[in-house]
Structure formats: C-alpha cells, structure tokens
C-alpha cells in the first residue's frame, strides 16, 4: 500500500476515532453513575443533527451552534427526567429497557417528523475547508475532531477527579441513598451528568455530521452502538478508557476496510469487544469490581 494511501487511512481512522470517543464518553459517564446503558444516547446524537439543520435555516452558524448545544442538553435532561428518574429504585433491567424504549421512540419520532429521507447537513464553512498536502486531501474537521476530543476530555477529567461535583458524581454512582444522607442532591448530580454527556454528544454530532454530511433517523443507531462498545472496551466508567476505546475502534475499523475486509468491519467492533471482555472483563481501564463475599 502506498504511503499516501496509508496516511489517508490513518487520518480517516483518527478522525472517526475522535468522533467515537466523544460519544463514548457520554455512555461511560451515564453508565458510571446510573449503571445504565443509555441506549438513547446515539439517538440524542442523531437529534442534535436535526437541530442543527433547523437552526442553521434561520441563524448564522455561530448562533446556530450554541442553540444546538442547548437544545441537545435540554433533550438529554428531559429524557432523564421523564424516562429514567421514575425508575430510580426499579431493577436495573427496567431502566435499561426504558432506555431501549426511548431510543425506539426517538427513531420513530424522527421518521415521523422528518421522514426517512436523509437530510443534508449544513456545512460550517471553516470546518469544511479542504486542505491538501501532497496527495493527502481532507477537510479541516478531520483534523479538528481528534484535537478537540482530547482537549474536552482533559477538561472533563479535571471536573470529575478534582471538583466537588465530580466526587459527588462518583459517590452517587455507588449508592443513591447514602449519597442523599451526605446531603448530596442526587437528581441535580444526575442532571449534571446528562448535561455533560449530551453536550459532548452535540459537539460530537456537529463534528461527525459535518464530516459525513447527511442525517437520517437511524444515523445514531450504529455509531451509538459502536461507541458503547468503545466505552466498554476502555473500561466503562473510565473517561480516558472511552477515548482510547473510541480511537481503537476508529482505527481498527478503518484498517479492516482498508485491507478489503469491509464485510467484517462491524463484526470487528464486536469481536474485539468480546476478546477484550474475555481477557480483561472490566476493559482496559475499568474500575476493579471488588465482590467481597
């Protein structure tokens, strides 16, 4: 394979990985606290795509972007309030099923409201600037995605490990009632989690769709699932883990397609997951679960 082709593949993989990483963080955060696979996360991401389409229709992009971020955050928090909060004390399976239900609802709602036809994603001019280095050709967003991901993750880790709300998040993740006894407002903490998760999903959505240009009601499904896998791969609950998981998947998938095995690119995602779970059941950076009998 020519070096240019190799570099081009590398660029694709890193950019894809960056977008995966941003979404994966949302999964990992919610899972870390609620022990919930937020199946709807991928669909929140998809809805963010539609928000952008509508926002850009009436505003310049620098106004539209904040609107999209806020709308997505509201949607995320709303979902939490309506579909997860009432199930706080229910068995884990119920809440997971509720998440599947929300995902189903969002997809159907999007189909109903926006039809199954794909819609063109508006291009934010500076992100779409195409640059060319020798034979390599890519838009700016390809480079921005991984860089922005790393910056955001750094900020997020600071928040979680070194702020009071971060400590509260970790406490809530273990035990609601005792956290309450410490005076922690658990609903507030959980909302903050969804705010952060949805914000990252919205940013991820902008980067991802800018690079892939169309949104349709099922746009969120597969990336969502893959990003969950990325989160598990890195060790669910661990933010650096989610990032690394995202990059592993992005690069791995691209490499597989590059080698001509695109048939198995999705299977790869899951195969690597299973292999990982077998050898390190808690993922790369997963917290060790101490099952003290």
């Amino acid at each position, binding site marked *: 394979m020519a070096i240019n082709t190799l570099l081009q593949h590398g660029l694709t993989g890193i950019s894809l990985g960056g977008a995966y990483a941003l979404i994966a963080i949302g999964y990992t955060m919610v*899972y870390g606290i609620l*022990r919930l*696979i937020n199946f709807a996360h991928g669909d929140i991401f998809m809805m963010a795509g539609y928000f952008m389409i509508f926002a850009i229709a009436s505003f310049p992009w620098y106004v539209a972007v904040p609107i999209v971020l806020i709308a997505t955050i509201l949607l995320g928090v709303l979902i939490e309030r*309506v*579909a997860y909060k*009432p*199930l706080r004390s*229910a068995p*884990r*399976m*119920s809440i*997971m*099923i*509720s998440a*599947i*239900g*929300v995902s*189903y*609802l969002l997809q*159907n*709602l999007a*189909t*109903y409201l926006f*039809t199954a036809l794909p819609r063109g994603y508006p291009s934010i001019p500076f992100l779409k600037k195409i640059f060319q280095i020798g034979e390599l050709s890519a838009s700016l967003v390809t480079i921005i995605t991984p860089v922005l991901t790393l910056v955001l993750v750094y900020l997020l880790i600071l928040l979680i490990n070194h702020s009071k709300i971060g400590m509260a998040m970790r406490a809530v993740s273990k035990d609601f009632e005792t956290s309450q006894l410490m005076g922690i407002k658990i609903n507030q903490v959980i909302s903050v989690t969804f705010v952060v998760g949805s914000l990252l999903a919205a940013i991820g959505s902008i980067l991802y769709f800018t690079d892939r240009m169309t949104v349709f009601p099922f746009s969120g*499904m597969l990336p969502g*699932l893959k990003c*969950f*896998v990325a989160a*598990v791969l890195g060790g669910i609950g661990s933010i650096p883990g989610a990032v690394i998981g995202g990059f592993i998947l992005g690069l791995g998938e691209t490499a597989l397609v590059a080698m001509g095995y695109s*048939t*198995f690119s*999705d*299977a790869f*995602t*899951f*195969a690597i*997951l*299973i292999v990982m*779970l*077998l050898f390190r*059941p808690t993922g790369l950076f997963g917290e060790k679960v101490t*099952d003290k*009998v």
Partner: protein
Amino acid sequence: MKKLDQKTKIILSVALVVVAILGLSYLDANRSDYSYALSILERSAIYAVVAVAMNLLTGFTGLFSLGQAGFMAIGAYTVAILTIPVESRAAVYYINGIADGLANAYLPLWAALILAGIFAAFMGLLIGYPVLRLKSDYLAIATLGFSEIIRAFIAAPQLDRITNGSYGLKSIPGFPSTFMVFGVSALCILLMVMILRSSYGRAFKAIREDETAAEAMGINLSKHKQMAFVISCFFTGVSGGMLAVYMRSIDSKSFQIGLTFDILLIVVLGGIGSVTGSVFGAFLMTAGREWLRFFDNPLVVGGFSVPLFRSGFRMVIFSLILMAVVLYYRKGLMGTREFSWDGIYNFLRKHLYLRWRKPSGEEVKRDV
C-alpha cells in the same frame, strides 16, 4: 384465595385447547377472509416461542442476553437451506451458484426445524463458553455483538454459495398446515415450562437470585448457565426456523438488532419472569402493531383532516405505549405470575362478588 379442584382445572384446560383448535379450524377453513388474522396469529406464535426462550434466560436465569436475532438467523438459514425444493435451488442461488454439498441436501420441515435448533444450540455452546463468564450488561452487549457477527457472516460474499450472501433465500415452502405452526410452538413452550418446573429450573432461578450463594449450594455455575443458554438458543433457533417458513424468503437484514428489541419488548410487556406473560405479550404486541396501522392513514373527520395522522404515526404511538408500560406498569401484564385457573376464578369471584354483595371487611383484606 380459593382453589378449584384438580378435575375442574383439567376440564377447563381441555375445553380451552378444544376451543382454540376449533377456532383455528374455522379461520383455516375460511382462509381467504382471515388470512391476515391467521398470519398475525402465526407470527405471534412464532414470537411467543422466542420470547419464552428469552424469558427463560433473562427472567429465570438472570442472564440478560440480546443475541436472539443472531440465533434466529442461524435457525432460519438452516431451515431455508435445507427445505428449499432442490429443483428451485439454481434459481435461488442465481448469481453465484450453490455449494456442491448443499445442492441436494434436503430435509423434511420437521427434521429441518430440529436441526435448526441443534445448530443454534451448538453455536450457543461455542459462544456461551467465553461469554457466559460476563455479567449483566456486559453479557448483553457481548451477545448482541455475536448476533451482529453472525449477521455479518451471513451477508459475507465469502459465504455466498452457502447463504447466498446479499441476495437472500427465497422459495422456502410454507407450512404444510396452519396447525403445524401452533403445534410446534405449543410443544416448544410446553417443553420450556417443564424444564423450568424441574429441579433444573429451580437451579436457574437460584443463579438469577444470587450466583455466589447458588455456587455455595453446589450448583455448578458455568454448567447451569451454559445449559440455560443452550436451551434458550435451541428454542430460539427453532423459532427462527419457523420464522423463515413463515416469511418464505429471508435475508440477513431480517435479523437485525431491531428483531431482538421486538422480542425484548414482548418479554417486558408480558412480564419478565412469566411464561404466560411472554405468550400473551407476543400475541398482544404482534396484533397491536397491526391494529395501530389505523394511525398511519390520514384521518378525515367531517371533511377536516386530522393533522397528526400520517404515515409513521403508528410507530410513534407504539413506542409511546411501550414507554408507558415500562414507566407506569413496570411489571408488565403478568409480573412474575403465571396464568392459572385459580387466578382467573378468584379474579372473577372477586369482581362479580363485589358487584352483587357488599363484601365483609375480612374478604377484602384477604384479597389484597
């Protein structure tokens, strides 16, 4: 709680079966008028099998597996490949041809269904070994992943001469008789109920409740989990095989994650941990989707077209109903209870009784 005596229950059960058979016979005899209803019932019966199989795993053994679609695919392809009439095969594998070994491999439907179960169970055995060491959500995702891998293999051009890859399989002969769908489904469900009522079923429940304690009671965790998984895979495979016969043509896209979610929703609707719940759930859900079709058509009331009614609305309503069940009716239809004549009797007694006479305080208390 009053109980009916054994004899009455047997009579009632026999009566129920007879009524069901007569009902089906009537529908079958007037096929052209009722083909829609029959097809819904058939599909429900097939889904009931896989829902009960999922419940056996999820509700009774506590293993949350989301691999149903994959195992159904294995069953479906097994049955399809083996039952497509030999003379039609060249036409079915019209692009790449059929593998030599398969060109003449033909089995009657019943044998193919059993083989479908066995293949799925065998796959479950292979997959179960590594995957069952995982807990709850991880297991769910890993099995979901396996289901996707199976699908990827089915669609893979490398296997074109076996699965016909992207082109799918068609010309699968339908059921020789309507009763076969219901008979096989009933038999499968009956077998699963018997397993659950045996000592093995209790062991499964023990694992669901507390793995450490179950192990301390001498229950071999991996063996029993494996057993539950393989049993569930077997029946999932059989139901997948029946689905292939029902659909008459299949491709890898028919076995996407959405199928697994449909089954999951049936189990939830019926009640996790209730076999009869899953059966009711399967019928209700399949029929419900059809009844709700009404929402997809523009509704004109007095010349005024009601704005919301257009295509896609049905699925929105459907998902809302599901959310409502999960949120407000968490235990589903049956909770962990099972249908019983005693239950019906007491239900009727309570409600009819209340209408006729003022109950004594004691009576009410006993029923609460």
